[in-house]
């Protein structure tokens, strides 16, 4: 129910935006994230962007996951 997935904002038109999600193009509402810009990733929940993803943090997390994965490989 609280599912939210990352989508890439392609263009903005007022409170609405066109976003890409898994190769599909969707119309979404950005009324809850007025700060969003084209090229940002947002967390999409029931057609509304609820948060703008922080790219640096996302990359940092990926790096952390990779570290954890290599640690695991090292253990097995």
């Amino acid at each position, binding site marked *: *129910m*609280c*599912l*939210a997935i990352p989508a890439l904002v392609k263009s903005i038109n007022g409170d609405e935006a066109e976003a890409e999600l898994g190769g599909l193009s969707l119309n979404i*509402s950005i*009324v*809850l*994230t*007025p700060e969003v810009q084209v090229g940002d990733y947002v*967390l999409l*929940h*029931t*057609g*509304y962007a*609820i*948060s703008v*993803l*922080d*790219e640096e*943090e*996302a990359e*940092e*997390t990926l790096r*952390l*996951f990779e570290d*954890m*994965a290599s640690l695991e490989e090292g253990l097995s």
Partner: protein
Amino acid sequence: MEFCGSHTTSIMKNGLRQLLPPNIRMVSGPGCPVCVTDNADLDKAIALAGVPGVVLLTFGDMMKVPGSRSSLEKARAEGADVRIVYSALNALQIARDTPWRPVVLVGIGFETTAPTIAASLLQAQHEGIENYFVLSLHKVCPPAIQSLLELEGVQLQGLICPGHVSAITGSLAWDFVADRYHVPCVVAGFEPMDILQSINMLVEQVERGESKVEIAYRRGVRREGNPKALELMDMVFEPSEARWRGLGVVPGSGLALREAFARFDAGLVFDIDAGPTMSPAGCICGAILMGVKAPPECRLFGKACTPAAPVGPCMVSSEGSCSAYYLYGEACV
């Protein structure tokens, strides 16, 4: 405890329980909006579906949940116009397309969903849409966590806080858990690695004898949350009492429409008689939602109660504990 049902599902689906050492036990919490919706509220939604002319809209998982005497699915089979929507945007569009019919959205969901419903109501007000109504069964999480922490028999050493609720409320919503109840908190994302990382952070806090709120989901969650979403929510809703399955009445945990939005309030506009409330015999969803019992302890689990023929809501919702244990449980024996 992981509060959120989506965390429970991810834990079960990815077999994370088997990866953990025996001294770490995960307990699922009440963070499944469908599951915690009280039968009396569900009965109201079902009664609304029976009002002549009404188009009743609901998010998918609600359809099959058995109320006291019926379900939305049964009401639809009996001729009511009940439709599944994926967004309040769809709901608003249906209202625009059929201005001669009252369109009622069953508003369920936590802080993640409530701002989207608020936005739809503000839009309806702005456009002068007169046939859009919401039955607000929305709930907010912090008061529920507080009443859970006050319960005897619930001893938590760490709390995985809901990721997408926190995207709205901010991690500061959980400060009281760490400060007042001395329970370490980590806001987590939903990938298996996110969850393992958050468990690790909780264990480190326990080892250091600390209790603070940390964010393991920094890419999506900020300490102050989403101020715009909070502002819209506050414009439309005010705190109210709400009844949670399992927890009972929790003061301040509901979201009622403010007086300025009374004309959109399906609970006020329609005169409905939902009849006396009954609970499914033998179902222990309430205890499961409080983390006091686990699904296999229910004697109906997997026998009289399965996802195909659910007795209680925890087996219906894709993020209900019973459903997660049923679908992915074998891997964890």
